[in-house]
């Protein structure tokens, strides 16, 4: 850890970053607050409505449904990806060319544009032209992500697992690599079982990395947009419409500026609270080290 010096002039070094980010973040945020308390038809026709939009949005079952759906999805994502990611990291070779190769292959899904991820699974899952779709159909499953809500939801979930488990695996792998070999030797001398090596040596070392992985995965799954948008368009029905998509539909599709803005603010407050927990946790971790 570096001992930091008190120096108020360092603020000048932050200034360019501050100006650039503030331009794209504070001005839109203020505008949203302004929108959220008015009924806006166009620039010259805006009427003050007070907190009506907030009441409407908070009582709207569509939004509540998509919030519930979002939390359900994020929870499922975490439940599958975290254990799977740990598992993959444990199975990887520790070093050498093979390990490098694994790292690169793991990274591939993370480097694909999000809408292309949707396209890949759209093609892959179709019963007529896709490998997975036709394989499932020929095995006798009645699989169609475009018409069956359960299939659609599962496909989006598998797609997300495919897309992001690598992130968890990569983080865990670098966490595991930081464990000194002496620990394993000691365990071998004690004839520790594979499970107790994992439980008492590897898992504690992974704690820090896992906190980061869990929070990153939560945040990213919480703003998922392009992948389901391309794959299912949010359907069938609303089964795969998550928060971001509900919001874009409202704001751009129907041009309901007021309710969309109110909804944005609520969405933002959730993100802000979770980010703060994230930030506090990792600064605490840095301190302990």
């Amino acid at each position, binding site marked *: 850890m570096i001992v930091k010096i008190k120096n108020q002039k360092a603020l000048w070094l932050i200034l360019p970053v501050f100006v650039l980010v503030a331009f794209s973040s504070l001005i839109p945020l*203020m505008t949203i607050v302004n929108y959220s*308390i*008015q009924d806006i038809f166009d620039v010259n026709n805006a009427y003050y409505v007070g907190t009506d939009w*907030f009441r409407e949005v908070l009582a709207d079952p569509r939004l509540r449904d998509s919030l519930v759906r979002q939390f359900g999805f994020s929870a499922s994502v975490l439940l599958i990806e975290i254990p799977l990611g740990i598992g993959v990291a444990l199975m990887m070779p520790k070093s050498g060319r093979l390990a490098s190769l694994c790292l690169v292959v793991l990274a591939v899904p993370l480097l694909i544009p999000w809408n292309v991820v949707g396209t890949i699974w759209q093609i892959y899952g179709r019963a007529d032209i896709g490998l997975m779709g036709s394989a499932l159909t020929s095995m006798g499953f009645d699989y169609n992500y475009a018409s069956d809500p359960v299939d659609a939801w599962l496909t989006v979930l598998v797609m997300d697992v495919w897309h992001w488990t690598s992130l968890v695996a990569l983080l865990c792998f670098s966490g595991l690599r930081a464990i000194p070999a002496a620990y394993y030797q000691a365990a071998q001398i004690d004839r520790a079982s594979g499970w107790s090596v994992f439980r008492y040596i590897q898992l504690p070392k992974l704690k820090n990395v896992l906190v980061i992985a869990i929070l990153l995965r939560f945040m990213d799954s919480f703003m998922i947009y392009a992948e389901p948008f391309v794959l299912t368009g949010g359907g069938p029905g609303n089964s795969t419409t998550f928060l971001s998509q509900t919001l874009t539909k409202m704001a751009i599709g129907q041009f309901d500026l007021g309710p969309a803005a109110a909804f944005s603010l609520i969405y933002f407050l959730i993100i802000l*609270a979770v980010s703060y927990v994230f930030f506090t946790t990792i600064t605490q971790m840095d301190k302990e080290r």
Partner: protein
Amino acid sequence: MGWMAWTQNTAIFFCCIALILVVMTLWELKSPSLERKGFLPMETTRGDRLFIGLLSSAYIHLAFLATTQLSLWIALAISVGWLLALLRWG
């Protein structure tokens, strides 16, 4: 600026936030605050407590809107009380 659709109320709101920030900055320059442990689970500085207070105030207001028809002035009064308590004992 026309497209930002400013209203008097939002202008007052943001001025208040800005004012709070300025006051906190001056206070901090005059007597820098040290991290300390209050009833919150971690050590906090004055700025941290202010942020937690403002964020939770927003949630208090939302809870009022979602569950009651009461005037928001009540929510505001509760929030201010909570914010002050947090700054003092948090």
